[in-house]
């Protein structure tokens, strides 16, 4: 009986299928901002992908050329609302490097604390986004709840929740407030316990794990060559963290581990970010002890000249999302001649083709959630 039927395989081979372009975005639940991902599909399999960005291009770098140096600090906050502290910090470091000045010890440790709080904020924001992308709304609510405690710390430190406007050229705006060290240690202790609930929610769910495990493999060499940085890179086996290998401020004086996994799949990138949050807690504890040891009256800011000597300087730092770099050219006036921002996501999102090729359409949100998209810094 079966002889009369054409085998299914033969039908599949004879059938001609067309490749089709699907446009995801700019308004799509997975995009977390305004950008478009064009994917080419053959049946269910993604064969090509092309991101389209630029909806939010404000000409940030051009705007900066028409402002005096201190006025760029609040602008740097607006590069990315989730990582505002790190961008402001990076900008101040770049100008300090061009000026050739060294800032007080206390300011360096305060900046480390502020940066790590920012990193936890950003990673929790990412975790909430991953939760919704993979269909678990509880993770979203719990991660956002934990994030509020860290935003409260921001309020205590500098009076604002997200666009903090806190670091200054030559230090930080104000000293740590009274009882800030007590509050931050309590928050961190509490957070580490609460984190295990969220991890259980994610890792015990076979649906979530199976959508990330074994999806979107990248090798170490591929990953380095396509320019991917940050937690996504360390999930592919590149053992590199700028905080440890090219230290800025006082990161060489605190002790922490850099989580690295060699699996190279989507799940490894997820695990790296979770582990990084715990490492950030460790760094915060050490830095708070150092601030306490320096005493109340230690200087936290020095006066700096308004004009930067002619020349160029660059600094890079480990942003929550990867390597961010600023390049400053000065012509000796009080305004920068050129200020370039290297945003980690700008390069990470350009790798979507490599990451999505060979995966199914349903996996695309799960893969691109690991980039932790933020359009403010991508388009600038």
């Amino acid at each position: 009986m079966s002889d009369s039927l054409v085998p299914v395989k033969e039908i599949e081979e004879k059938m001609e299928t067309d490749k089709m372009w699907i446009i995801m975005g700019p308004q799509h639940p997975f995009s977390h901002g305004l950008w478009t991902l064009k994917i080419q599909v053959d049946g269910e399999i993604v064969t090509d992908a092309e991101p389209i960005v630029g909806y939010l291009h404000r000409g940030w770098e051009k705007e900066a050329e028409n402002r005096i140096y201190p006025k760029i600090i609040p602008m740097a906050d607006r590069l990315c609302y989730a990582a505002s502290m790190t961008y402001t910090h990076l900008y101040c470091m770049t100008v300090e490097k061009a000026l050739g000045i060294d800032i007080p010890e206390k300011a360096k440790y305060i900046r480390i604390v502020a940066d790590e709080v920012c990193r936890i904020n950003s990673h929790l924001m990412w975790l909430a986004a991953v939760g919704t992308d993979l269909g678990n709304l509880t993770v979203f609510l719990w991660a956002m709840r934990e994030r509020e405690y860290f935003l409260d710390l921001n309020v205590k430190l500098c009076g604002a929740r997200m666009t903090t406007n806190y670091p200054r050229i030559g230090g930080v705006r104000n000293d740590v407030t009274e009882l800030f060290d007590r509050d931050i240690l309590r928050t961190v202790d509490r957070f580490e316990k609460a984190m295990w609930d969220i991890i259980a929610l994610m890792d015990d769910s076979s649906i979530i794990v199976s959508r990330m495990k074994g999806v979107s493999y990248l090798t170490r060499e591929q990953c380095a060559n396509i320019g991917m940085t940050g937690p996504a890179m360390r999930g592919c086996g590149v053992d590199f963290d700028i905080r440890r290998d090219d230290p800025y401020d006082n990161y060489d004086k605190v002790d922490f581990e850099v989580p690295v996994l060699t699996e190279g799949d989507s799940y490894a990138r997820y695990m790296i970010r979770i582990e990084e949050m715990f490492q950030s807690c460790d760094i915060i504890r050490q830095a708070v002890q150092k601030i306490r040891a320096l005493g109340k009256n230690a200087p936290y800011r020095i006066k700096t000249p308004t004009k930067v000597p002619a020349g160029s300087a660059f600094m890079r730092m480990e942003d929550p999302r990867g390597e961010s770099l600023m390049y400053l050219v000065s012509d000796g006036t009080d305004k920068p001649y050129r200020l370039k921002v290297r945003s980690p996501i700008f390069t990470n999102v350009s790798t979507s083709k490599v990451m999505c090729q060979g995966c199914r359409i349903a996996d695309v949100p799960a893969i691109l959630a690991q980039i932790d998209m933020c359009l403010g810094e991508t388009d600038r």
Partner: protein
Amino acid sequence: MDTEAVYQSPSEEEVKTLLTEKFPEVEVTKTEARRVYAKLPREKVLEVCKYIQHNLTFEHCSTVIGVDYVDHMTVVYHLSNYYNGLMIELSTDLPADDLHVESVTCVWEGANWHERETYELFGIIFDNHPKLERLLTPKTYEFYPFRKSYKLRGSE
């Protein structure tokens, strides 16, 4: 690609000697802790970049930056080594009337979008780039907004 000895993660001084010995045109202007600054003529960019990637183990291209100095333009490359945290800053000058330089996307795939961005904002043309199109600004733009000749409203 000539296969000389592959130097595993050279230090700042080693990078300086290797680069200047191999390419006399390259001028190393400054070295400091984990940083090497060099200038080179634009004809040599691709060749030097290939050497840096293959022989000096610089696996990652951080940025490609354009700077408009009115009488000429400069393209700056930041190259990063994942083994010892070293960074090389290469800069090359282009005359204002001939803004062409060889693309390094074939060496580091990550330079692709940075070169596209530099092209659309400064009008610097990267030869042999796989897809040199506008990225952030609309495709209908016929000007290069980050040039110094393009003034912002209220800036003058």
